[in-house]
C-alpha cells in the first residue's frame, strides 16, 4: 500500500493519477472472525484499527449494512472538544482529543483536524457560574480552558450581537483552544484505510439480520451475506443500537432521536472558531470548503428517520440570528438528520453487556464524533481484555442500576433533556 505524501501526489499527477491504489479492499466475508465489530462508522473502524494495532488481534471483521462512514460519521457537525465537567467524561474525551492531535500522522490520512478553538458563550450569570465550574474542573483535569469576559469575547468574535437590542446579553465564555473541527468523512476513510492495511476485513453492504446464541454467548452473526462465526462481538452502530439489541431480545437505556444539522452556501472565511450560544441551542463553525455548519437540539421525538422537520430548524436559525444577526441574508443549502442514540444521562455507554462475548459502544447522544479515536481506543481495550480501560470504567452499562449516572447537565433519565 502506497504512503500518501506531497511527493506521491506530484509523482501521480505526472502519471495521470493512474497508480493510486484502492484505499481499502472489498473482501468477501470469511466463515469466522475472532472479533466482529458491527458498524463501519468512525467508532467501529477505530475500534478495529486499535484492536489490530494495540492488541495484535489479527482476525477482525467490521460489518456495515450500507457504505462505511454512512451513519453519524457522515452526518455530524464535525466538532471536536473535551470541555466536559464530570471526570468520567472529561478524562475520556481528553484522551480522545490527544489522539486527534496525532491522528492524521498516525493514519497517514489527513483528517483535517483544525484546532481553531471552541467557545461556549454564557448569556446569564448562572451560566457564567456553570462554565466557571466546568472550566475549573477541566483545568484541574489537565485540560486547557480559559474564561473570557464580555470584553474579551467581543475582541475575539466581534460579529456576535453585543448590541443593546440583544434579548440575552453575552456575559462571557469558556474557551478551549485545543478544540476545533475535523473533516468527518476523512476520519472514517482514514481509519478504514488504516484498519484495512492491518488486515481487518471491512465488509460493506452486509446487514446483520440476527444472532445465534449458545448459552450466554453469541456464536453466529447472521447477515445478508450469510452467517459468520464470531469469537467476540462489538456493537458500534450509534442510533441503530436499540434496533440491533432487539434482535437479541435485549433492551437498553437508550432512545433513538433525530438530530438535524444544516449548512450554508460556501463563503470566504468569516467564522474562524466553533461558537456555541448560551441562551438557546445553537452552534456554528465554518468548513474548509466555506460552508457555515449549524447545529442545535434534537427534534425531541423518537426517530429512526434520517430526516427531521422544519420547526427545529426554525428554532436553531432563530437562536443563530440572536447570536449572529448578520447571518440573516445567508442561505441554507442543505439540511439533514442523523440518528442519535440518546442515553439516560447524556453520557456514553462503553463496556461489557449482559451477554458474555458482546460489548457495547453506544449512547453517544451529541458526543459521538469527537469521541471517535478515544472510543475506538477504549473499546478495543475492553474487547481485547474483557475488562474496561480505566477511562471507560465509569461509563458502564450498570451505572444506571446502581445510581451512578454521569449526568453532565442534570437532565435526569429523560433523553431529550440532554
Amino acid at each position, binding site marked *: 500500500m502506497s504512503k500518501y505524501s506531497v511527493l506521491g501526489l506530484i509523482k501521480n499527477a505526472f502519471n495521470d493519477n493512474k497508480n493510486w491504489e484502492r484505499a481499502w479492499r472489498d473482501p468477501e466475508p470469511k466463515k469466522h472472525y475472532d472479533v466482529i465489530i458491527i458498524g463501519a462508522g468512525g467508532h467501529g473502524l477505530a475500534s478495529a484499527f486499535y484492536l489490530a494495532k494495540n492488541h495484535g488481534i489479527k482476525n477482525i471483521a467490521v460489518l456495515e449494512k450500507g*457504505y462505511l462512514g454512512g451513519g453519524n460519521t457522515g452526518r455530524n457537525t464535525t466538532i471536536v472538544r473535551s470541555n466536559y465537567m464530570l471526570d468520567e467524561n472529561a478524562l475520556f474525551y481528553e484522551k480522545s482529543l490527544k489522539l486527534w492531535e496525532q491522528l492524521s500522522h498516525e493514519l497517514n490520512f489527513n483528517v483535517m483536524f483544525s484546532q481553531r478553538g471552541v467557545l461556549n458563550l454564557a448569556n446569564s450569570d448562572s451560566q457564567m457560574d456553570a462554565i466557571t465550574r466546568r472550566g475549573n*474542573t477541566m483545568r484541574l483535569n489537565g485540560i486547557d480552558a480559559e474564561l473570557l469576559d464580555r470584553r474579551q469575547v467581543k475582541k475575539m468574535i466581534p460579529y456576535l450581537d453585543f448590541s443593546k437590542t440583544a434579548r440575552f446579553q453575552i456575559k462571557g465564555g469558556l474557551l478551549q483552544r485545543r478544540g476545533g473541527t475535523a473533516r468527518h468523512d476523512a476520519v472514517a476513510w482514514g481509519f478504514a484505510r488504516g484498519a484495512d492495511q492491518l488486515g481487518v476485513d471491512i465488509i460493506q453492504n452486509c446487514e446483520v439480520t440476527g444472532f445465534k446464541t449458545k448459552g450466554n454467548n453469541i456464536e453466529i452473526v447472521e447477515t445478508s451475506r450469510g452467517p459468520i462465526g464470531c469469537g467476540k462481538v462489538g456493537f458500534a452502530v450509534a442510533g441503530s443500537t436499540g434496533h440491533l439489541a432487539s434482535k437479541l431480545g435485549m433492551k437498553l437505556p437508550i432512545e433513538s432521536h433525530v438530530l438535524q444539522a444544516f449548512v450554508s*452556501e460556501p463563503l*470566504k472565511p468569516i467564522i474562524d472558531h466553533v461558537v456555541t450560544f448560551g441562551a438557546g441551542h445553537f452552534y456554528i463553525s*465554518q468548513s474548509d470548503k466555506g460552508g457555515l455548519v449549524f447545529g442545535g437540539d434534537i427534534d425531541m421525538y423518537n426517530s429512526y428517520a434520517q430526516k427531521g422537520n422544519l420547526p427545529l430548524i426554525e428554532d436553531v436559525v432563530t437562536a443563530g440570528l440572536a447570536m449572529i444577526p448578520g447571518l*440573516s441574508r445567508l442561505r441554507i443549502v*442543505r439540511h439533514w438528520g442523523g440518528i442519535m442514540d440518546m442515553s439516560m444521562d447524556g453520557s456514553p455507554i462503553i463496556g461489557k453487556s449482559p451477554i458474555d462475548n458482546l460489548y457495547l459502544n453506544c449512547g453517544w447522544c451529541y458526543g459521538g464524533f469527537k469521541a471517535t479515536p478515544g472510543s475506538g481506543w477504549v473499546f478495543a481495550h475492553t474487547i481485547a481484555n474483557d475488562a474496561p480501560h480505566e477511562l471507560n470504567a465509569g461509563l458502564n452499562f450498570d451505572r444506571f442500576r446502581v445510581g451512578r449516572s454521569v449526568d453532565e447537565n442534570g437532565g435526569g433519565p429523560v433523553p431529550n433533556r440532554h
Partner: protein
Amino acid sequence: MLSTKNNQQTKRLSSGGLIDRSKPITFKFDGKPLMGYDGDTLASALLANNIKLVGRSFKYHRPRGIYTAGTEEPNALVALRSNARTEPNTRATNIELFDGLEAKSQNRWPNLFLDFMQINNLAGPLFTAGFYYKTFMGMPGWHFYEHFIRKAAGMGSTELERDPDAYDKKNAFCDILIIGGGPTGLSAALTAGRSGARVLIIDSSKLLGGQLLWELDQIDSKPALQWIESTLEELKEMKNVTIARRTTAFGYYDSNVVNAIESVSDHLPTPEPHTVRQRLWQIRAQKVIIATGATERPLVFSNNDRPGIMLASATRRYVNQFAVKPGNRAVIFANNDDGYKTAVNLAEKDINVRAVVDSRTHVNQFWKTKLEKLGVEIIPGSAVINTHGHFGLTGIDVASLSADQKSTSSQSTFMSADLLAISGGWSPNVHLYCHAGGRPQYEASVAAFIPGVRSQSEYPAGASNGAFSLIDCVTEGINCGNQLVTELGFSKTGFSIPQTDEPTVTPIKALWRIPGKGKKFVDIQDDVTESDIKLAHQEGYISVEHLKRYTTLGMGTDQGKTSNMNGHAIMAEERGEDIETVGTTMFRPPYIPIAMGPLAGRDIGQSYSAKRKSAIHNWHHENGAIFVDAGQWLRPQYYLKNGEANTTENMDVAITREVQGTRGSVGIVDVSTLGKIDIQGADSSEFLNRIYTNGWTKLAIGKARYGLMLREDGIVFDDGTTSRLSEDHYFMTTTTSNAASVLSHMEYCLQVHWPDLDVKISSVTEQWAAMAIAGPKSRDVLQKSTDEEDLSDEALPFMGVNQISINGIPALIFRISFSGELAYEVNVPADYGEYVWRRIMEKGKTDNITPYGTEAMAIMRIEKGHVAGGELDGRTTPDDLGLNKLISSKKEFIGRRLLKREGFLDPKRPKLVGLIPIDGKSRIRTGSILVKDPNASLPMPKLGHVSSGAYLSPTLKHPISLGLITGGTDRIGETVWATSPLHGETNEVKIVDPVFYDKQGERLNG
C-alpha cells in the same frame, strides 16, 4: 437613466419576448453601468449586453458564463446588492432585474479577467479528488495550512452586517396544493378548482406558465401564451383557488406539510415601507400535486465549461422569453430531439445555426425536412469532443461516435461557433417527492430517475413524473386533478384534453460521457471532472455517497441539479453495473438555497424570546431596578438609587443596602414569578403525599408546609411551600425555573399514573402578584397596610395562612420566610399588585422599607443555608443537601425507591456545607473547586465544588459560600482549598455549618 446612446444591448432582438421595452432598467455589473428591460433576469440582461464571462469556477478558477436560465444555474453566481443587503452566491438566472441593481462577480482577484488563482488550473492533475486527504499531515499541523487553503476556497463574501429588512411567516391550509404553475400545474388547478376543492397553486416565478412562457408550443392551435391567459383568468374567478407567485416550495416534510419561501420584495430595490423582504409559508394540504417540471442535463465532454456553452432549453428561453441572442453562430449538440427543436427555434430567431450534432444515428424525417429548409446541417452519430476559446467559446471539434459510444473517430472537424447549445436529456425534479420519503427509480426509456411508490399524499405529475411532452403534461395534470378531487369527495367536472402540435419523438439514447482528452466537467460548479469520478472509483470510493463526499460532486449551491445524474451514471459505467443498482444520493431539503431571515421571521433581537413581566414591573422600572433574566421573566436584580451609575461597586453598595435594610428593619421583594398551582379535590392530600417526600395528610387547614419533590430516579426536582386553604383545597408554590415542568409533572401523574384520584390542578401563577415582606418590622408595616387584620402570632403563627383584606383587596397571606426574618408572603390579584406594593411602600416609609432584588434575596438565603439553583442542579439527592428529615419513611412517594441505590449511599458523595475564607476577606467564587492540596499533580483529585457564593455577607461582614464536599458536615472545622484556576485564585477555606446566621431560627418571630 442611461441615454439610449449608451444602450449596449447589442444582443437584444428587436421584437418579441415577455419584456417591456417601454420600461428600461439601469443596473451595474462589476461597476459597469448597463441597461435592460422590465421582465429581464440579470442573466438575460447580461446576455443582452453581450456579457458572457460572469464568474470563476470554484477550484480551478476557470472563466465561466451563464449556463442555464433557471434555478439549476451552477455558474452564474453573483454578489447581489451591497453593504448590509449583500447576498453572495445569488443565481443571476433567478434575479428579476430592478432599477439600480448592483451585482459583482465572485471568486476572482483582482478581477474577472485577470484572476491570479487561475494557476490552479495549470496544476489540475495535482488538485484531483482526494488531494487534501493525502497531504498536509505533518507539522505545523493542518490548522496552519488550512489558513491559506480556506481563503482560496469558499465563494461569495459577507461581512455579517445586520440585515435591514424584515421577514414574516404565515400558515396556509388547503385541500390540494399544486406546486408549479406550468402546463401540468395549471391543468390540475383548473380541474380541481372547478370541482370546488380548496386549491392553492404556488409558483416560483412572477409569471405562471412554466416552460410555456418560452416554448413555441400551440395548444388547440393557438399560441400557448393565450392558453395560459385564459386559464389564469378562469382560476382568478374561482374563490376556492389561491395563486401564490414568486413562492418556491423548498421542502416536503412529515404529515404533508410543505414549506415555501415567498419572495415578497426581492424584485425591488428595497422592500416597500411596512413590507417584508421574504415570507416563510407553512402549507398543510390534504393532497399535494408535484408539478415541478424537469431539469435539462448537460453533456460531458472535454472543455464543456466555456462561456458560450449553454443548455439547449436555456437558449430557447433567452431568445423567446427575453428576446436575447445568446450567440451569433450556434452549434447544437444533443442525444434527444430537443436538439432539433432548439435548432429550428434559434434559426427562426436570426441566429446562424451551423449544425445539429446528434449522438444518435436515426433522425426523424420531420426534423430532417424542417432543418433542411432552414439550411441547418445534421451530423448524426457524432459528438462534440472538444471546445476552443478562453473568455468565450470560439469553436468546437466534432467527431463521429462509435456504436458503443466509447470511442470517436480519430478525425475531427473544427467548426467555429460562439454558442454551443447542449442537451443530454431531462431529469424530473423529484426533489420534493424524495423529501416526502419517496425513492425514485431509474427508467431507461427516458434515461432518468422518476418517482416510484408514494410515501405520503404526494402526486408527481407531468415532467416531474417523467412525462416530458406537453400533451402528456396536460393530460397528467387533468387526470391527477380529477383523481384527487374524487378521493376528497368532490365531484369531477368535465374538462377535455386539448390538442398540441408536437411531432413524434425519437427516443433518447443515454450518453453519459464523450471520449476525449482534457477536463470534462460533470459538476461544473464544484469543478468535479470525469477523471475525478474515475479516480474515486479506482480508489474504492464507489458508492454514490462516497463519490459525492470524496469528489464533492453535487455539493455546491445547486446541489447537483445538473450534475448528479451524469456523475452517478459515469460511476455506474465504471463499476460495470446498471444505474438502478448504483442508485442515487438522497435529495435533502431545501430544493433551492433559502435565506435564514424568513426562518426566524420576526423573532429577532428583543423578540428572540418573549418577555414575561410581573404585575409590579412598571414600579420596579420607575424605581431604579436593574433587571435580570429568569427564564423568560424579568426580575429586579437590585435597585439603584437616584443618580447611581450601574457599576460593580454600586451594585455591591445596593445589595448591601438591601440586605441590611431588610435584616435591620423591613424589606420587600417581588416573588410573583414563583409558580403557583391551585389544587382542589377530595384526594388532594393523598396526591400531595405521593408527589412530595414528606407527609401531607396531617397538615391543618390554614397552615403551610415546605415540600420537597423528587424525580423518579431519586434526584431532587423542586421545592416550595404548599398551603391548605380548606379541607380539599391547596395552594402550591414552586421555584420560578421549574414552574412549568412541575405543573406538567403533576398533570402527568394525574392523567397517566393516578386517573382515579379526584384532584384538579390549575396554574394560577398569573392570577396572583406576590411579594415577600421580611424583616423585624414586617409585621408592623403589613399591619398598617391591611384593614385592621389580626396579624398577631396567635392569629397568624409561623407557617400560618390567612385570607385578609388590604384596603378592600382580598389577599392571601402566608407567614413563611426565605430570608430567615419574620416575613410574610402576600398574594393579591395581579391587577392590584402594583397598587398593593405601592401601599406597602407608603406604609413602610417610616420604617425605611427597602425594596430588594434577587441578589439580596440570594445572599440572605445563603446566610440561612437554604438551597436553591446552585444546589438543585439535577444531580443532588435529599441526603446530599441535608434534607433527609423531609424523607418520610411511612409512605410511598415518587423517587423513594431509587434513593437506596448503592451510588446514592456512597459516603464519597459531596454533601452540603458552609464555607468561609480563612483570611476572612477573600472572595470564593461560585464554581471554584474544593481540593485538599492545590499543588497536587494533574489530574487533581477533587473533593467538591462551591455551589453558591456571596462575595460579602453584609450581615456577617465576611464572604460566605455554600458548597458540596465529600464528607459533608462531618468535616466541619476542617480547612480545604477552594481553587479557581480560570481566575488564578486559590484560597484556604474553613468548612462550617451551612446555616451561617440565626441557627436557632429566633428571628422568624421578629
